[in-house]
């Protein structure tokens, strides 16, 4: 159906925020090509008249009451953090503003 170039893998790795080595880029480009070729056959039978199934069992309207529950103690919330300060998570500088 398509071929996945090394550049395409690099673009995807950027989107997925994963640093890949040169070797990994080369290997993945080859592997993904094979995998994508083999899975592309789904489009053979996925005709317009077939609805998509996003949830295996058809439940609807599962709501929670708007009642407050237990919160994590701050110490627990921050216990696993690589860095914390003043009750907050410390993260490296954010360059790209959303």
């Amino acid at each position: 159906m398509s071929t996945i170039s090394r550049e395409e893998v690099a673009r995807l790795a950027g989107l997925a925020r994963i640093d890949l080595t040169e070797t990994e880029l080369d290997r993945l480009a080859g592997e993904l090509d094979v995998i994508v070729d083999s899975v592309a056959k789904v489009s053979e039978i996925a005709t317009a008249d077939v609805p998509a199934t996003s949830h295996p069992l058809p439940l609807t309207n599962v709501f929670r009451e708007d009642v407050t529950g237990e919160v994590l103690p701050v110490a627990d919330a921050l216990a696993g953090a690589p860095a914390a300060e003043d009750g907050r998570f410390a993260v490296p500088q954010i360059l790209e503003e959303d």
Partner: protein
Amino acid sequence: MSTMTTPLVDYDEAVARFDPVIGIEVHVELGTATKMFDAAPTGFGADPNTQVTPVSLGLPGALPALNGRAVEYAIRIGLALNCEIAPLCRFARKNYFYPDVPKNFQTSQYDEPIAFDGWVDVELEDGEVVRVEIERAHMEEDAGKNTHVGGSTGRIHGAEYSLVDYNRAGIPLVEIVTRPITGVGARAPEVARAYVQTLRDLFRALDVSEARMERGNVRADVNVSLRATPDAPLGTRTETKNVNSFRSVERAVRYEVSRQAAVLDDGRSVVQETRHWHEDTGVTTAGRVKSDAEDYRYFPEPDLVPVAPSREWVEEIRATLPEMPAARRRRLQGEWGYADAEMRDVVNAGAVELIEATIAAGAAPAAARKWWMGELARAAKDRAVELAELPVTPSQIAGLQALVDSGRVNDKLARQVLAGVLAGEGTPEEVVTARGLEVVSDDGALLAAVDEALAAQPDVVAKIRGGNLGPVGAIIGAVMKATRGQADAGRVRELVLERVQDA
């Protein structure tokens, strides 16, 4: 940020040559007790990370559970905006990496909003009504809050690191998106402002949000584009993010019109980008360029099941919708007998509720308006606060007016009573007592003062006896002075004439 001055075209000139088109995205934080997807509380001003659960922190293994009240509020907003309510809709994941988005995806509605295809009428200050079409209103969750630390300027670019508080992460939001608003020409900035104001009033009337602008409960993203003529295709737009006051909405649109006009005049094209609004300098600056790198990889949120509001539920909600602000204003104006201009002033001053409550507490509509738009408006202006923030209640104002109506204080004294109330001296009644401001209506006390004044000015008494009533005023003045203004001037006059005749 560039230090170069951005060239601008004078606004009137810009709109004379270009047709501005605007579009507005408003985010409102719903006033639910808990977050969109977990039972963490939503109170304002809590210590950092004290209102989080594994869900709002996006910890491994945590799953969302949808707040039913948030769905109900979204439907209320949709119905109030004359929208269709989707018979079935799903949440989607919007995937992007950002430290204040704990899961690195935002759970939002994408191509299946809960409400769509609506409209709202927006009234401008001069009474002109503009109908704004609503494309959609959908549910989503808020992000956490970054505080940038270190660096020289404190702005993001100079920061060495950031501190993240996830208390706000997961607070339920409804985002309301307009269709492009065309045909408003030079009034685009005003329309933008009035639209956001209209929505704010609506959120409050619906009781779905505190809708406090200064707390960021209501945030607007403003899209602006220019085109040569009203029948030309839409131009390239910019999106100015997080404009958080009515005045800023108006200024931001105005600024973008002037800036884009300069870009186009220069023969360049407007870049489709996100821009940031700077409240202090009143300018927008370039942010992220919208590009194909912005690939959010939306897909239906598998951890939440579809929302399928039954028609019965929707009608039940519709039946409980309160009167909409515009209709209410029209009704109140009729009931109160205010002229159009008077009502507009009241609305613009944010005094509708205050006057309504004052009238409910017994004051006549004209008197209520006189107080709130006169003495109290001046006090608010002096103190640079909103009317509602003054330390006086509508029922106290009604009480003050009752004192005037009963003749216990005159207008001048009433203003002194009000000053006392505003100074925190208590209720009008308490101020009257404490300051001794009541009109002196005891004839004995008054007669003593009158006699004293007459004795002091025999020549005046002679003139009056001679039939010249002109100098009576001088005697009254002296009595008023002696009683520190607390005498009823009409009664003093009667007493003076009586005494002169009798003598």
